Structures are given as structure tokens and as C-alpha cells.
């Protein structure tokens, strides 16, 4: 079993495996990258093969036995991404690479008592103590204790197994109140979806994406972005046979080659169409298809964007554009 927690071993805080609890740093607002890496790693083998001319052998054909994992100290916005990803990886046919890890992972989140300039969970309908995706939510109490709220059967089971670590307490005063005041107001996400539905062709996208440099920072750090590539990598010879791996790697809709056809034709040939895809996928397509938005308001795309693109500003602009349209309609 491995335990994963936020650690501050370098200049910034990241999730990493720990062996002792004092390695963990629960004091930070959030980690640089999200917990998705433990369920959907940046690169993973999905098949290995070896060949000698036309003699092909498939090896390691099955998803690996996942390591039992406890993620402790994830923020509610990270935990909330998991039920969203579950839908994609289990609809129609099951991606057991993700799902096996998912069922071997226990998520213990810690509610937020602080936020930074980039957090916006409340704008997206979540909050500093949301329970989505957590098995157990720890809400910091006043005396340095945590109030544990089991959110799933697995969480309840966990509490039962470790009864002696817990004591009964009265419902604590919400410590998240202070942070709530600093977080933004909820956006009207239906209104945003309505605008998106009607504005596929709109000058907005060109203006909104003009400063985008087209890196994959926002998508790779996003806890809900899940697009991937499948690629073969030849390795060295093993016992006279050429060995290699087929891998599943993170990919980004912001890369020009993401949709490039073999013919050279690209249905999304410019920054504007690629940025539009990101916004549409998050706030229109995925909700239409799977019933949830591809955003938890963790703020990583804002925090880490090399050119300070701010998805919140764009959502606000879209929301008010639709509000104007609605008003116009009523009048």
C-alpha cells in the first residue's frame, strides 16, 4: 500500500508518496498538479510486444494490479474531479487501467480554510467543504483536530476500522465560513452553456485566445482534463526479439497536432478553434454527454498559465453576454 500526500520537498508543493506523516504538508492552499496522476498517469504502458520479423507476441496484455493507495490531504476540488472522470472511463466500455486504480484508491480530503487569488470552486457550484469524490472529508476543527465526515461506504468503513483514532464530537462550527467570503460568487452555468450553444462561430474566440501560446499547461494540470494519445515505442532487443511498448500518454487539445489528419487537413487549425474546444468541452459538450462539467474550480489553469489567461474572466464575460441576450429577448 502507498500513502500519497502533499509534500513540500522543493520550492512548491506536490503530491508524493510518503512513509511518515510528518513528511506531509497540509498547510498549502493546493498542490501544483492534481491527484489525477495517481489514477491516470502522464504515461502508462497499455501493451507490450516483442517481434522477430513477422512473429509477433503480445506480452503484459492486462491492466496491472493496482497498488492500494490512500490519498490524504487532497482538496475537495481535486476529489470532485474523480466522479467526473469515472463517467468518461466507464461509459460504453470500461478503461480498467483507470478504473482498477480508482477502486484501489481511498481519497481522504481536507476541507479548505484558506484560498488564493486563483481559487474559484464556489463559482462552479462546489465549495471548500464539498464532499464529491472524497471517501472521507476532514474538516479542520478549532483545537487542531479534524472533524471526519465519511462520504462513502468506503469512508465509513475506514472510520470503523480505525475507531480508536476517532472520538465522538458535536457538529463543529464551520471553519470554512471565512474562506467562503473570499471565494467568488456562483456563476450561472446554464446561462453559460446556453451562450456556448449558440456561439460556436463568434469573434469572441479569436479575441479570447489571441495571447494563448498553445502550451499544454492548463490541460495537464487540470484535474478533469483526460484526453490522451496512444503511441508505440520500440525498445531494445530482448533475446533476439525487438521489444516495445504501446503507451497511453496525456495529450492536449491545445496542441496543433491533436486533431491533425494524415492528409494534412486540420479541423481545428488555429488557436481560436482549439481554445473554443477547451471551453466548449468543459462547459457544454461534456455536460450534454455526461451530465457534469469538466471543471472543479481548482484554479490551476489560472495559477500556472504562462500568459495569465483567466478562464474565470471568460466565463464571466460569457455569462454577461448571455444575460444581455436574455434581456434583449424578454424586451
Amino acid at each position, binding site marked *: 500500500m502507498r500513502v500519497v500526500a502533499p509534500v513540500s520537498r522543493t520550492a512548491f508543493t506536490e503530491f508524493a508518496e510518503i512513509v511518515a506523516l510528518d513528511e506531509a504538508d497540509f498547510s498549502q492552499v493546493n498542490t501544483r498538479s492534481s491527484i489525477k496522476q495517481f489514477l491516470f498517469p502522464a504515461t502508462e*504502458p497499455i501493451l*507490450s510486444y516483442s517481434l522477430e520479423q513477422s512473429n509477433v507476441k503480445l506480452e*503484459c496484455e492486462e491492466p*496491472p494490479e493496482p497498488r492500494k493507495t490512500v490519498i490524504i490531504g487532497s482538496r475537495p476540488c481535486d476529489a470532485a474531479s474523480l466522479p467526473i472522470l469515472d463517467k468518461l472511463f466507464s461509459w460504453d466500455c470500461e478503461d480498467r487501467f483507470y478504473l482498477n486504480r480508482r477502486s484501489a484508491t481511498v481519497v481522504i480530503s481536507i476541507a479548505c480554510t484558506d484560498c488564493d487569488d486563483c481559487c474559484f470552486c464556489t463559482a462552479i457550484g462546489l465549495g471548500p467543504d464539498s464532499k464529491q469524490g472524497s471517501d472521507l472529508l476532514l474538516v479542520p476543527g478549532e483545537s487542531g483536530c479534524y472533524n471526519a465526515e465519511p462520504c462513502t461506504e468506503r469512508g465509513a468503513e475506514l472510520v470503523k476500522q480505525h475507531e480508536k483514532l476517532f472520538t465522538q464530537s458535536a457538529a463543529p462550527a464551520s471553519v470554512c465560513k471565512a474562506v467562503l467570503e473570499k471565494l467568488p460568487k456562483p456563476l450561472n452555468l446554464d446561462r453559460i452553456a446556453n451562450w456556448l450553444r449558440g456561439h460556436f462561430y463568434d469573434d469572441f474566440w479569436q479575441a479570447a485566445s489571441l495571447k494563448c501560446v498553445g502550451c499544454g499547461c492548463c490541460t495537464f494540470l487540470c484535474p478533469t482534463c483526460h484526453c490522451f494519445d496512444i503511441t508505440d*515505442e520500440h*525498445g*531494445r532487443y530482448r533475446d533476439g526479439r525487438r*521489444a*516495445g*511498448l504501446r503507451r497511453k500518454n496525456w495529450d492536449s487539445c491545445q496542441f496543433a497536432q491533436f486533431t491533425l489528419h494524415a492528409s494534412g487537413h486540420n479541423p481545428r487549425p488555429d488557436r481560436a478553434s482549439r481554445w473554443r474546444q477547451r471551453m466548449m468541452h468543459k462547459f457544454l459538450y461534456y455536460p450534454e454527454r455526461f451530465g457534469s462539467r469538466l471543471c472543479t474550480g481548482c484554479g490551476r489553469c489560472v495559477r500556472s498559465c504562462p500568459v495569465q489567461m483567466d478562464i474565470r474572466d471568460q466565463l464571466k464575460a460569457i455569462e454577461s453576454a448571455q444575460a444581455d441576450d436574455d434581456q434583449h429577448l424578454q424586451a
Partner: protein
Amino acid sequence: MAEFEPKIAAFVCTWCTYAGADLAGTSRLQYASNVRVIKLPCTGRIDFHFIIKAFERGADAVLVSGCHPGDCHYTAGNYHARRRWTVFRKLLEFAGIEPDRVTFAWVSAAEGAKWASLVNEVTEKARKLGPFTRYQRLNEIAEGEAER
């Protein structure tokens, strides 16, 4: 235990060094058999990716060789290459690759004997360094052997 036999990739230009190696062969010079020769039109064509790829494919050392300065079949290919390698070899060293893993040499078509002794020397250097375990470790992880 048998002595470690390093695998060495040699990227050579066809006009000088390859001809020199040929001469070594026709002159029946004996030298280490650890080198796999990859012939290129010119040293100017030997991209630094070749060196990295050689390590990725399991080479313990790399030898890069072509015409002496001033003797390039294409006038200046080797001069261009030399300028790049001046910097590239230091970058590799900075990244933690022992400088003796990559050897640069000028070997003309007439220098069969130099080729033979160069190969022996490079092989000896590589043998002394031992297997390139640092890179092999990367290879094992990338090829999934760490999990297997």
C-alpha cells in the same frame, strides 16, 4: 566473470573515416570488435539525436568520426559539425554523462592504422567506465522492465 564487452556505436562519414576503416580491414589490422559502424554522408549529417538514440538503444559509448578539418568532401560539413559538438559534448557532460562515453576523432581514408587504434582506445575507455548503467536504468523504466 567474463570481462565486460561494451557496445559502441560509431557514426562515421563515408568519405574519410569509413574508407579508413575499410583500409584497416583490407590491411588486415586486428582491432576490437565492439564497434557497430553507421555510415553517414558527412560528419555534418551526424545529428546529436543520433548520439542520444544510440544510448537509448543500449550503447555504452559513442564514437563520432569524419574527415580532418579542411578535407571535407562537401568543403565545410565537418567544420559545422565541430562547432556544434564543441557545445554539445559539454552539455552532455553537464547532464551527467561521463565525457569518455562520447569520443570525437578525425580519421582520413589513409589512416587505417589510426582507426584501428582509435577503436581499441575507445573500447578500452568504455571498458574502464563499465556498462552505462545510468542510461540503462532509463531504458529499463521506459521499456517497462522495472515493473516486469
